[in-house]
Every structure is written in structure tokens, then in C-alpha cells.
């Protein structure tokens, strides 16, 4: 590989940010200042060493972006020198992610959510007022820039905003990360529900912004003895391993060791657990297929890139009961024969990152992660990788590319992840909710688990209820409960217009369809989907054509751009929805026909699920709600 660099050099802060992550440069070749005689006689590294370090690219970009606020040419050059990555490739990666900037910008960036749940709760008015007080989005003023953001996963407290401040983090200098809020520095502040005044104050002095409420505030049922997955939220101290163990923690892992890997797989198969991310694939089959692969090493990837608009359950789990995920991942790793697990966490979840980092670090100190877990001779460790603002990285193969330091573009399947996944090795990818289900399965046995729910959808399901309800939040119900029962719990609006199930890639349901059973098969039969459990409730005050336009904008922004049907199709869909935003009947008919044709090709010919499902919600609004009639 011929590496060629421009003359731009990193400044001291940029250099320090990268060195804090990677250690000091071992020689002048890797960007050390000055070249020694020895450097001129020995060349080290080479292509294979470079390949081994490529996966540090995303963390290195984060390091600079976190410290300085943006990634300059000099900083990018330095990262490339340190990791032997071609600058053009690193630039391609940096520009893929919305949270990175390759242009100068202030240290404080305020992300204001424009997505569905926030739009249903006044984010348009909030943004208008913010424009009056802080200038238009994207234009810096007083050391801050605010920008519109896709869903921040704070839907229960809409309208939401997230302030991120670049700079040195005193709390994290070489020490284990402290739990959220323990230090006064405040690298991030969540303001939700947000008012323009609160945002202006937070932007001026992030350290004075009020602390976020605990995760339990997002769980209206907290403390209910019927809860399974949410049972510890608000009960356990999320920063205390002892408390977790005192409340039943690590019993499931002990049982797993007693059963052995194939016994765990059998138990999960018998329990009928299927993936909660939307595809509803049997988890046990995935584990079995991964475990059986002769090639190694095997990897476990926990998909915590929760970015579907309207979804926030994984955030609540990670903030409220982080050790549960650590334990569940250890069990999954044991079952599939992996010694290394990755959590790919949304970049917009600073508090979940802190909670989980603390949990992983303390589990490691106490021998619950590491070379000899629980003294059972099994080695397993967890590494957390942060995403950087790309919905598509929630796609299971895009995650691999993102972790590997490539652009987060989905791969084509086959080959499937169980054969060739992360680093080309057999990999099981499960999301957070799926994994934590493994704990009750092992604690009480497959039969007890499968007794809840319906024949084909077993166990309980988390629902993210947002929009115009009295008590938005994460709800846990056994599979088979009806949408109506869920809405009654959450306090439905007086004049219900529609419910969006499954998120931006899901489908709308009418007020007369509330008896639909909340199971995978029940929603499918009703022509919609459970997806990741989004339940967005809209009343008559909402202008549906604008909701649809936002959905189309979302997909246009989030398409990776790899394949034509999605890259251009999402743009054409958005254009058509723009044209008919104030039209109905014959005035809209041509554009609807056009969208149907484009939508069909997107569904049939796109590479990944994003393009294949991007038209679903709009289509269902046209067909079921008669939006443009």
C-alpha cells in the first residue's frame, strides 16, 4: 500500500487524543516526531499488522471528535499514519457518520430531535423558537452549534435534545469509567422534555443542566411483580455488582455452566426464544449454527445500535440493569464458543455507555469477565464499540463493517453471519432485548418461560410507547396481549387517529383495529409488524402527510447509498411526498402510483432491509388510513 499524506500536521490536542487511545507512536514511521537512525534502518509493521489495527479507526475518529469536536486534515493524517490506513479510505469512513465533522465546528453541538415522537410533541415549535434564540441550525453562535437530529431514543420524554461537548474528560484519564453523573465535567447533557429556554441555558453551561431522571422514570410499571425483563429496573442499583448479585444476578450463568454449551442452546431452543429486533429468527438456531462452525474464533456481537425512530427500550435496560446484559452476553458467548463479545452501542447514548462501561469494568475486576469466568475455566471478555450516528449500522452485517473500521455498508448475504461475520469469522448477532431474555430462560427453565405468551411467540415483549399518551415509556407485556390493553395502560388520547407499529419501517393501524394481538404472527396477519416494539400513538391533531414526509426524509438521510433502488429511490419517494403534502384525491393519485412503482422495486431489489422496508409505513398509511383520500 502506498500511503501518501498531505503536509497538514495534527496539533497537540489531536495528537494527544489519538495517543491516549493507541499509546505513543512506536517509531517515526507511525507518526512519531523525528525519525531516529534505527527508524531509518528498520521498517516494522507491514500490511498484515495494519490489517490487525484497522478496527481501531472508528475509536480513533471518536477520540479526536470527542476531544476537539471535529476531525481536521492533520488529525486524519495522524490517525492514518498510526494505523496504516489510506487517507482516502479514512475520509470515506469519517464522512459516513453523522456525528463526525470534517469541517471546523464549535466544541458544543446540540442535537435536537425532529423525529416522529418528538414531532408529535411539539419539536417543530421548539425548533422555531430555538432558531430565534440561537440562529438557524448548522450556524455556530457563542461556541455552540445546534442541528436537527434523527430520533435520539428519548421518545418517552419528547421533545428531546442531546448536548455533546468536546474536550478533555478528566474523569476518564486512565481510570475506570465512573457511573454517569459522578463527575462534574458533563461531556453530555440530555435535555428532555426540552424547552428553548432550557436548551439555551444548557448550551451556555452544560455542567449546570439538570441531571437526567433515573432509568426507572421511563418504566411506568416499575416495581410490578409481574415484570420479567424489567423486574430489576428501579429496584437494583445499576452501579453495584453486589446489589445485582443480591437480586438474583449470576444465577443464570451458574446454571449455564452446569448445563454446558449445548445444554444452553437446547434450553433456548425449547423456550422458543426468537430475535426481538424485528426479523423474529429463532435465537437457539442461530446459536447452534454458530457453535457448529469449524472455523474460528467465534464472535458474539450485541446489537445495541438502537436507532429505529421510536425505540428506546435497550437504552432503558442498559441504563437501569447493565449487569443483566453483561451476564446474558457471557452466557451467549459460552453457548456459541466465543471468547470475545462486542457491544455495538449507539453513539447517541452517552449514559448507557457510562453505565455499561462501568458494569463491564467491575465485572472484570471481580472475575466475572476475563480469562477464567467464575473460576470455571471459560475465558470471555466484552468490548464496547460506539457507533457514530448511522441508522444503517443496526443492520447486522453493517455492524461488522463498522467495527472493522470500514464504511457501515451492509454486506450481501449469503454468506450469512453464522458462517462469515465479524472479521470473516462465525458470528452470532443478537440485540439487547433478545439477550436479556436468556436470563429468565435459564433461571426458571425453558418450560416455565414458554408458558408465557402464545404458542409461537413465547415470553414477554417490551414495547416503546410514545406520542400522545398520558404515560409514555417502556412497557412489558406477555405476547398475545392486545394493542388495546397496552394503550389502556399508557393512557390513550381522546381522539385517536392512528398507531404506528414497528417504527419507521413498520405499519400504521387504525383506531378500529386495536384488538390486534401483539405477537409476531398476529401483527403479520393484520398486515403490520411488531418490528422492534415501537408503538407511536397519534391523535387527530397530527398532520399525517407531514409524518409521512418525515419518515421518507429519514430513510433518504439514512440510506448508506450503496445500491441504486434505495439510494435514489428514497430520494424520489421523498420528492413525491413533498409534492402531495397538501393534496388529496386525483391531485395525489399520480404521485401515489409513482411511489408504488418505486416502492415495489425498492422492496424487491435493494440489498438490505433498510431499502426493502423503507416504503412500508407510507404504503400502509395510504392503504389503511386513506391519508390522501
Amino acid at each position, binding site marked *: 500500500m*502506498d*500511503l*501518501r499524506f498531505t503536509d497538514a500536521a495534527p496539533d497537540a490536542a489531536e495528537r494527544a487524543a489519538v495517543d491516549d487511545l493507541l499509546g505513543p507512536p512506536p517509531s517515526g514511521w507511525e507518526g512519531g516526531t523525528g525519525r531516529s537512525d534505527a527508524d531509518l534502518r528498520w521498517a516494522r509493521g507491514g500490511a498484515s499488522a495494519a490489517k490487525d489495527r484497522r478496527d481501531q479507526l472508528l475509536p480513533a475518529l471518536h477520540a479526536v471528535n470527542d476531544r476537539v469536536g471535529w476531525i481536521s486534515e492533520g488529525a486524519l493524517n495522524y490517525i492514518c499514519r498510526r494505523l496504516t490506513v489510506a487517507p*482516502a479510505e479514512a475520509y470515506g469512513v469519517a464522512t459516513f457518520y453523522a456525528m463526525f465533522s470534517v469541517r471546523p465546528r464549535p466544541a458544543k453541538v446540540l442535537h435536537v430531535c425532529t423525529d416522529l415522537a418528538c414531532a408529535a410533541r411539539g419539536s417543530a415549535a421548539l425548533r422555531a423558537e430555538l432558531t430565534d434564540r440561537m440562529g438557524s441550525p448548522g450556524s455556530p453562535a457563542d461556541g455552540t452549534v445546534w442541528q436537527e437530529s434523527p430520533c435520539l431514543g428519548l421518545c418517552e420524554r419528547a421533545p428531546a435534545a442531546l448536548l455533546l461537548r468536546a474536550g478533555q474528560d478528566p474523569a476518564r484519564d486512565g481510570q475506570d469509567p465512573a457511573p454517569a453523573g459522578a463527575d462534574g465535567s458533563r461531556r453530555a447533557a440530555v435535555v428532555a422534555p426540552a424547552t428553548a429556554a432550557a436548551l439555551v441555558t444548557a448550551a451556555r453551561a452544560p455542567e449546570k443542566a439538570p441531571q437526567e431522571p433515573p432509568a426507572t422514570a421511563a418504566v411506568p410499571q416499575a416495581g410490578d411483580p409481574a415484570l420479567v425483563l424489567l423486574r430489576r429496573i428501579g429496584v437494583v442499583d445499576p452501579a453495584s455488582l453486589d446489589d445485582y448479585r443480591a437480586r438474583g444476578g449470576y444465577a443464570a450463568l451458574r446454571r449455564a455452566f452446569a448445563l454446558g454449551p449445548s445444554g444452553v442452546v437446547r434450553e433456548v431452543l425449547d423456550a422458543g426464544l426468537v430475535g426481538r429486533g424485528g426479523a423474529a429468527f429463532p435465537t437457539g438456531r442461530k446459536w447452534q449454527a454458530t457453535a457448529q462452525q469449524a472455523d474460528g474464533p467465534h464472535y458474539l456481537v450485541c446489537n445495541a445500535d438502537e436507532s429505529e425512530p421510536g425505540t428506546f427500550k435497550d437504552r432503558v435496560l442498559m441504563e437501569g440493569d447493565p449487569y443483566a446484559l453483561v451476564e446474558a452476553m457471557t452466557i451467549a458467548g459460552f453457548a456459541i464458543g466465543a471468547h470475545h463479545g462486542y457491544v455495538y452501542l449507539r453513539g447517541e447514548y452517552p449514559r448507557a455507555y457510562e453505565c455499561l462501561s462501568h458494569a463491564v469494568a467491575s465485572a472484570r475486576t471481580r472475575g466475572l469477565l476475563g480469562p477464567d469466568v467464575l473460576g470455571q475455566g471459560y475465558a470471555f471478555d466484552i468490548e464496547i464499540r460506539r457507533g457514530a450516528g448511522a441508522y444503517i449500522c443496526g443492520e447486522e452485517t453493517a455492524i461488522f463493517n463498522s467495527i472493522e473500521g470500514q464504511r457501515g455498508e451492509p454486506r450481501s448475504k449469503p454468506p450469512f453471519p453464522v458462517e462469515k461475520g465479524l472479521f470473516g469469522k462465525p458470528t452470532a448477532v443478537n440485540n439487547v432485548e433478545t439477550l436479556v431474555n436468556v436470563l429468565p430462560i435459564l433461571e426458571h427453565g425453558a418450560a416455565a418461560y414458554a408458558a408465557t405468551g402464545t404458542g409461537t411467540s413465547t415470553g414477554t415483549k417490551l414495547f416503546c410507547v410514545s406520542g400522545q399518551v398520558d404515560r409514555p415509556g417502556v412497557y412489558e407485556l406477555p405476547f398475545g396481549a392486545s394493542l388495546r390493553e397496552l394503550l389502556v395502560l399508557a393512557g390513550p388520547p381522546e381522539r385517536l387517529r392512528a398507531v404506528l407499529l414497528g417504527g419507521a419501517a413498520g405499519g400504521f393501524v387504525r383506531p378500529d383495529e386495536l384488538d390486534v394481538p401483539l405477537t409476531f404472527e398476529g401483527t403479520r396477519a393484520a398486515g403490520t409488524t411488531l418490528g422492534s416494539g415501537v408503538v407511536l400513538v397519534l391523535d387527530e391533531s397530527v398532520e399525517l402527510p407531514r409524518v409521512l414526509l418525515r419518515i421518507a426524509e429519514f430513510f433518504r438521510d439514512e*440510506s*448508506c447509498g450503496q445500491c441504486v433502488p434505495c439510494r435514489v429511490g428514497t430520494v424520489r419517494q421523498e420528492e413525491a411526498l413533498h409534492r402531495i403534502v397538501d393534496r388529496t384525491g386525483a391531485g395525489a393519485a399520480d404521485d401515489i402510483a*409513482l411511489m408504488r412503482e418505486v416502492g415495489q422495486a425498492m422492496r424487491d431489489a435493494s440489498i438490505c432491509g433498510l431499502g426493502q422496508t423503507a416504503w412500508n409505513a407510507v404504503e400502509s398509511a395510504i392503504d389503511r388510513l386513506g391519508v390522501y383520500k
Partner: protein
Amino acid sequence: MTAVPLQPPRRLVPFTLDGTETRVPEGSTILDACRSAGTDIPTLCQGDTLTPKNACRVCVVEVEGARTLAPACSRRAEEGMTVLTDTERVRHSRKVVLELLASSTDLSTTPRAAEWIKEYEAKPGRFGADAARVDEQPKIDNDLYVRDYDKCILCYKCVDACGEQWQNTFAIAVAGRGFDARVSTEHDAPLTDSACVFCGNCIEVCPTGALSFSTEFGMRAAGTWDEPAQTRTTTVCAYCGVGCNVTLHVQENEIVKVTSPHDNPVTHGNLCIKGRFGFQHVQNRD
């Protein structure tokens, strides 16, 4: 397919292609099978010397039992598979893909684009006059070749040829995301400041004419480019001992561009800067 001498015999895979029982060597793609059966499938991002990215999706076919269509260029034939290459669904996707491409980029120099647009009755104009386009100006930052990304369909071939699959130079990559994604050097720097070694292997694989010799670009602009009047002569590059094949494209006794045969088992169409661009001395007559 590249000619590889002395290939061990491969197992034959039986499957059904458009109703006919077919057998192809194991590992063949559906596209390989179609081509040997004489079935014409449109392709853009597939190239004979590269592993396809299967990004354009113009080659999609129907595989019985699959939820979505499959890219013929990358999907391997499997035993017992039933493939249909010309159903209503297939034609619909191909048509829309062509419409989406033609409404956003300039396909005027993409070979066969006009023919396929006609064949599939694609109407790119129906997205209206305001339909967003890629809208790029030609980048002329060196004497040897021009990058006119208004014509780019983002097939990734140049990126793959410059990087991992052939040249290992990595001067260009895809930057940005979605409709804003573009092939780019770092920070959009001019090629002369990038790692580019001007081997022109990206031009060799570009299926659209987005990358072209400065000579061709200039002659097209002046309206003097006349492909039917050109002769092509394949000979051996005389610069060094590797002995690559070069094909000289000559119009009115002037070399106007240089390509290289893709079926050469050693070089697969790749050259270095000397063989690709070092032709001027041949025609300096005084």
C-alpha cells in the same frame, strides 16, 4: 471470467434456468450460467476482472422461494435452484433501476444504457423536471484523465480497482452517505495531491465514461470523437520487461486512448502509467 490455465475440473451443479435444466460448474454465478446459455442480462457494476459489488441491481433475477430478487452477477447457482430471468417482477425492477439512474446521472456515455432503457420501457422523465440529480462538474486537475462524476453511477469498480482488488494504491474511496455519496480522494483533494499513481486502471473498469482520458474528454467536448472511425491495435508495451499488452485506439493517425485486454492472464487489463499514458512520444513527429 478470467482465463486461468490448468483449472482442476469442477463439479457440475444442476439447476433450472428459465424452465430449462442446466448444469454449470460449481461456484458459477447465475450470470455466468445465463451468459453460457445465451441469455442477455443487463449489468453495470459487474466487471469481468473484478468481484462485483452488486450495487447497481440492474441484473436482478427471481429465485423461486426467495422473498426478494437476487443479483445474478453475485448469486451463485445452487443445486435445485429455480431461476427466472424475465418475469414481470424482474422487468419491473430493472425498469425502475434504469429510471432512477437515468434521472439522477448522465448516462450518455454508458454503453448499452439507451438500448436497455428502450427494452425495459423506462421513462426517467416521469420524476419531473425538479428531480434531484447528482449535479457534478467535471474534475480536471491533471493532464492525463478527467473525472466527470455527473456520469458516475457509484458502481465501486474504480474504488475496487484502485484499492484492494488490483492496484493497492487506495487513492480514492466512497465518501459521504446516501444520495450524497461520491467517489473522492481525501478531503476532495486534487488527484495530483493524492496517492494516485496514474495507472489509469480505474478508467479501464469504469462502465459509464465518468472516468476518461483527457484526449477523449476533450475530443467529445469538441464533437470530434468518432469511435466507429477508430482502429484498435493490440501490441506489447515496450517500456519494461513485464511486457503488458496495450491496445492503441487510433483516430486519424493519432493515438486517442490506450486500453488493455482483460483476458490477459497476467495483467487482466491493468497497466502502469507508462503503458497507459506514455504514448505521446510515438506521435511527436518533429
